[in-house]
């Protein structure tokens, strides 16, 4: 099950601490944050797609989907940049002949951007957990508007 870094947009304040942390860690930041005019700041980084399109045109097999995750082998990279053209999210850049793409900080316990984010907007999760978390959040909201008669009804049935 792949783990990727996602962002809870309701918490993002656009401070760019994530960009800075990533840049300190790597040559160049693999997460890119911009403010959508009048709406919200949104960070973009590799989504670890489970049917990745970036692997399709890779001639040297440097980008591969293996062991349930996207792997990048810089040794095999030809620097052709075709993967960058394939990605629908524009999540990778070519720098110095190799691809700079979020690899979820494999050597760390949690990715540096997630660790640095001051509002805990960035989080590491598996896709399956999204739905559950959102539903639980909704249930919390619903408690405010749930008809008290439901509770009464339950007691009666017992």
């Amino acid at each position: 099950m792949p783990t990727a870094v996602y962002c809870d947009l309701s918490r993002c304040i656009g401070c760019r601490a994530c960009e800075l942390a990533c840049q300190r860690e790597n040559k160049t930041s693999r997460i890119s944050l911009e403010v959508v005019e009048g709406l919200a700041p949104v960070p973009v980084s590799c989504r670890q797609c489970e049917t990745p399109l970036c692997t399709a045109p890779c001639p040297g097999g440097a980008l591969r989907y293996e062991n349930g995750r996207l792997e990048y082998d810089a040794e095999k990279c030809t620097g052709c940049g075709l993967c960058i053209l394939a990605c629908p999210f524009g999540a990778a850049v070519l720098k110095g002949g190799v691809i700079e793409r979020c690899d979820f900080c494999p050597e760390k316990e949690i990715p540096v951007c997630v660790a640095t984010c001051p509002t805990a907007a960035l989080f590491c999760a598996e896709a399956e957990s999204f739905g559950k978390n959102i539903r639980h959040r909704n249930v919390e909201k619903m408690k405010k508007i749930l008809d008290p008669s439901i509770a009464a009804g339950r007691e009666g049935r017992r």
Partner: protein
Amino acid sequence: MKEVLIRPELCMGCRSCEIACAVEHSESKNLFAAIMEKPTPQKRIYVEYVPEYNAAIPMTCRHCEDAPCTTVCPTKALKQDEITRVVTHSTDLCIGCWACSMVCNYGVIGRQKEARVAVKCNLCPGREIPACVEACPTNALVFLEVKKLSGVKRTEAALKLARGMQGKAL
């Protein structure tokens, strides 16, 4: 357009809807065979239990107007029919980026383990009444147009009011 609407006050959390949904989306359409099937048939309706109220709320795709999932999907695997408003998902166009799952306000987009793609309620296109609605023993799930359900609720509320007003001077 008819939708799967929920009356949570009638839900007792039996999860028959979940099982019926998964079986309907299996190859064999039979509970006992479906358990052994690969890829594992997946439910698209979720019954959430609220412990404080001892209540259960079934949650399924609302086929939202201007659906957020359809907006973010890069390959248009998620598409919304202009007229019926039904949001459909095509497995072979799905790249598993999970943008849809993140923006869904109801958290009702799931993941198919083996195929690594999204799964979502499609209002059971092959059936007259969706499987979950048919399976519900208490009619907590109904397949009606919104205005019809509003009508039903109005009738019920009017009845309660009238009962309450009985014997009181107007």
